[in-house]
């Protein structure tokens, strides 16, 4: 355990933080160091973020730098783009990733493309912070991850942490990065009082700032038999599945991508070269998305090494409300174990 914690970079026995606290620490540190960093979003001031992303910040920085905004996503995300192009470093919160629909032009036609369309003469150093994920029966408009939707469109860096340690390092990197970064946190991992997190995301977190580079996947668990590639909540479910599989004599390697754009293809290839068996676990829709992309990259580079491939993802249906229906479609620990067994 101590070894595992050391691997995650936190000090063994060091101060533990929830994922939300870790994110807040990174934002607060950057705001203290740079007057040009500010936060805009719905309910980020007095409420301190529906998912605790701004706890304590309005008290320290005031309403001018922790800005409640009208429910006008096109306007405030677009304003984030404009302020970023002026050189400021806005952190703009889109309360649920599902709400991207009302403002997608500002996200994918402006934020994501302006650097390229300007031939590199314009930069958009903003963070779009947004909540993703299901598991609490919030139905089709408040439960999606949409990893594939955002990652498909060029021009945005896409990150999604699975632990507090990663969240802090990725957030520091996101704020300092000169490109737009979509920071997708899974609600279930945040450590909210009203939505208990599983064991795992709360980790030791160093007090001092540090960055985790994008495009560096993390081997969460080593194994020689099967590679499971995933991110976010499903890192923890995959590790749980791996524990069960050990008892059956199957050693599973679990790779946490941490970012989708850029994608650490080398880490995937290296693991699959060892195991020959690839399982991709994705809380996003199955078709035309992350799972297909990762299988395709493996196939392009090392078709001969691939002995078996499985995908575990949301079937292509909107996310249903009722508990037995949601449980049916969201990949479970047992679904992952089943897929790993199927590669053998």
């Amino acid at each position, binding site marked *: 355990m101590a070894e595992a914690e050391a691997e995650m970079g936190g000090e063994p026995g060091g101060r533990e933080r929830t994922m939300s606290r870790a994110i807040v620490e990174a934002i607060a540190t950057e705001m203290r160091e740079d007057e040009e960093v500010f936060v805009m979003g*719905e*309910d980020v*001031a*007095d*409420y301190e973020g*529906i998912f605790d992303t701004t706890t304590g910040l309005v008290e320290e920085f005031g309403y001018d730098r922790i800005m*409640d*905004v*009208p*429910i*006008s*996503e*096109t*306007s405030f995300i677009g304003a984030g783009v404009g302020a970023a192009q002026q050189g400021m470093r806005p952190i703009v919160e889109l309360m649920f990733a*599902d*709400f991207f*629909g*009302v403002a997608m032009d500002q996200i994918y036609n402006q934020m994501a493309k302006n650097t390229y369309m300007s031939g590199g003469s314009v930069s958009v150093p903003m963070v779009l912070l947004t909540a993703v994920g299901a*598991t*609490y*029966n*919030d*139905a*089709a*408009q*408040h439960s999606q991850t949409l990893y594939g939707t955002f990652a498909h469109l060029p021009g945005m860096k896409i990150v999604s942490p699975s632990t507090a340690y990663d969240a802090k390092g990725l957030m520091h990197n996101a704020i300092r990065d000169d490109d737009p970064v979509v920071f997708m946190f899974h609600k279930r991992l945040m450590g909210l*009082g*009203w*939505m*208990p997190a599983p064991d795992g995301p709360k980790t030791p977190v160093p007090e001092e700032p540090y960055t985790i580079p994008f495009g560096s996947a993390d081997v969460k668990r080593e194994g020689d038999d099967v590679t499971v590639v995933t991110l976010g909540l499903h890192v923890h479910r995959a590790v749980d599945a791996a524990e069960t599989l050990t008892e059956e004599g199957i050693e599973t390697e679990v790779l946490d991508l941490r970012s989708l754009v850029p994608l650490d293809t080398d880490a995937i290839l290296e693991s699959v070269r060892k195991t020959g068996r690839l399982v991709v676990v994705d809380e996003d829709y199955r078709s035309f998305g992350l799972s297909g992309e990762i299988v395709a990259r493996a196939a392009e580079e090392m078709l001969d090494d691939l002995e078996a491939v499985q995908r575990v993802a949301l*079937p*292509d*249906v*909107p996310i*249903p*409300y*009722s*508990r*037995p*229906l*949601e*449980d*049916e*479609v969201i990949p479970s620990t047992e679904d992952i174990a089943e897929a790993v067994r199927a590669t053998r």
Partner: protein
Amino acid sequence: MYEKMVTARYYEERLEEEYMADKKPAFDISKGLIPGELHLAAGQEAAAAGVCAHLRDDDTVTGPHRPHHIAIAKGVDLERMTAEIFGRETGLSRGKGGHMHLFDPEVNFACSGIIAEGVPPAAGAALAAKKRNTDSVAVAFLGEGAIDQGGFLETLNFASVHDLPLVMVIEDNEWAISMPKERVTDVEDGSKRAGGFDMPGERVDHDDAVDVYEVAEDAIGRARDGNGPTLLEIQVHRRMPHFLGDPQVYRSEENIERHQQLDSIERLADDLRDRGVEDGDLDEIRESAHARVDEAIEWAKEQPLPEPETAYEDVWTNPPYGVSDTEPAVPVPGGDD
């Protein structure tokens, strides 16, 4: 109106009990018979009842994420709506929608969990009525926090330029979750948005059901007579948190108390007494409404949960291949023969 209002109020109070019952001592949003977010509308009944009193089943209503009082006022099937909220197989959406996504085509009611996004579809229903030369109308309900949203602002123009039989009703409960109206919106009276779009706008600055009824009568009459859209804003009150479990740390005790003291139901009851209605009659209406709600909840809880494999149904109306699974034998120009 009184009956609809007491039904809606008691419905929310009972749902609060049912929702919280199995989330104690520690609140966990994913636990219990009703999981997920639950946005209740206690204190907003007058707006829904006063407007919907003028509507027929063929008139369309769209609601936001806080929809129960509107659904009740529109005559949505109470049993099946309740079963949906409990995630049951016999619910309006067979357990797929949940409380923010209620659809009852029998009475042309629908709602959406995305702020202001129910407004454009209401304009679409109004457009259909106009194209078909019927005298049906459409009403879109939205919160005061939604009036800064593009979907609403664009629809004001769309409805105006096409003279659609549409009434948009802003329910002003003063709070967009934690954000007070004055922090995020630059007009005190949201109905003034109408002026810039060349349509009538009116605000009822207290939730007096009779006043709402009268203002709505004009607006809906105008729509039904082919005289175009209207924007209404009605002051309502938020007696409960944004969603159950919201600690409301942003809201002062005084504000919560004020919202609870201003009770549109008591106001209407006083009004009815002044008009000669006996207390006994009011009691009877209330008791029968409560009984109906209790029965709907009991019925819903006895309903079966959906079978997991039904999660894969209802993505399409037609089969994936479309309306036919065969291609016709059409001669191809330049083909072999």
